[in-house]
């Protein structure tokens, strides 16, 4: 026989337990999580970028970039035999040759899913490295994995919040074909706009439209150019 629940009891015990019922998730958080999960299944830059753009109003850029990180990393093993690097950069421009698409899939015949995976839940152990464009000797940067690029951009975003734009500029310069370049570019445009540097923002908006004509940010970029 089940004991009567304490929440039905009068007094402090019942009041404390009752208080939990009013603790409910926000609609914004729910929508963001839903979009992130669906984007992970859809496994494309459009989805992750849409998430990045669409949720910005509600959740703030900080949380979104973190969200995008999870989306992108989670999307990798789920993608339908699509090389994540290509999917993450829907540009018309030529892309570096992808690396080992098979590496993104978990081993076949794996046992039933465990919600308690070894190590952090979404570590990008199987993330293929992203090949940076051929650098000149003076500007040579090491090849970064997708996870590392996301981390770099995340660091750039944190620095930006402190008013330091150097990390973002460094990322943009170092990885013009990087997996997160599209997002970084949009971040740069936003930063320039916030600082009232309209002409530079427009120049960057043109750059984004040229490199990523089908970007989720394209419409916003066009609006910037119209003003």
């Amino acid at each position: 026989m089940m004991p009567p629940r304490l929440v039905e009891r009068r007094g402090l015990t019942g009041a404390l337990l009752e208080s939990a019922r009013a603790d409910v998730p926000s609609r914004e958080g729910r929508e963001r999580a839903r979009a992130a999960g669906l984007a992970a299944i859809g496994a494309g830059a459009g989805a992750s970028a849409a998430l990045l753009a669409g949720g910005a109003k509600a959740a703030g850029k900080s949380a979104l970039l973190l969200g995008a990180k999870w989306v992108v990393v989670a999307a990798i093993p789920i993608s339908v035999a699509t090389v994540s690097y290509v999917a993450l950069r829907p540009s018309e421009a030529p892309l570096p040759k992808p690396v080992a698409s098979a590496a993104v899939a978990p081993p076949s015949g794996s046992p039933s899913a465990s919600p308690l995976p070894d190590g952090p839940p979404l570590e990008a152990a199987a993330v293929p490295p992203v090949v940076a464009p051929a650098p000149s000797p003076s500007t040579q940067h090491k090849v970064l994995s997708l996870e590392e690029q996301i981390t770099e951009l995340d660091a750039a975003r944190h620095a930006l919040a402190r008013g330091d734009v150097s990390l973002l500029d460094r990322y943009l310069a170092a990885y013009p074909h990087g997996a997160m370049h599209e997002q970084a570019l949009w971040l740069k445009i936003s930063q320039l706009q916030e600082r009232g540097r309209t002409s530079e923002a427009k120049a960057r908006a043109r750059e984004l439209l040229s490199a990523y004509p089908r970007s989720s940010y394209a419409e916003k970029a066009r609006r910037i150019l119209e003003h």
Partner: protein
Amino acid sequence: MREAVTHAGASEPDHGAQRTGVKSDARDDAATTFARLFDANYDFVWATLRRLGVAAEGADDAAQKVFLVAARKLLDIEPHREKAFLYGAAMRIAADARYSSRRRGEIFAPLDDAAASPVGASPDDLLDQKRARELLDQILGSMDLAERSIFVLYEIEGMTMAEIADLHDIPQGTVASRLKRARETFERKVEVMQRRRLR
């Protein structure tokens, strides 16, 4: 996704546009499955994370992580075990969040050491929902995790012992004994809180 492709296209040639269509169908199926899973369980996952010690401001991100784990492993989740899967993932992510909070010094102090919290709080304060939740979190945070998780599922989520046993994959008798201990612990801590109020 690889399995979905295999299932959907088992008797079809695996090439060309046909293959693309199969992939697309498989992705649509996965999206539908995920949406159903999400809609049925998001509130539960979010509340579980909160009651397992994730701060309100971190709960949305933590819940998102849980569902991204689910999205990643969607095709491996056993039928009718979806909730158990999500609960397990939530337990792990909540543990990570608690660890991070502890490192940042944000963890609630155990109730017995938290002399300041309830003292001086007026009855009105205690009736305040936010304050009550803080106190609830404080008490739950001072409880043994194994007992707390069962206590929360029974007392707050309103689950039956059979459901809890299924979720934890333990015998109902174990659930009953842990719940009994957890209730005793909870009530004892509430008494401590009340005594401090009256001091």
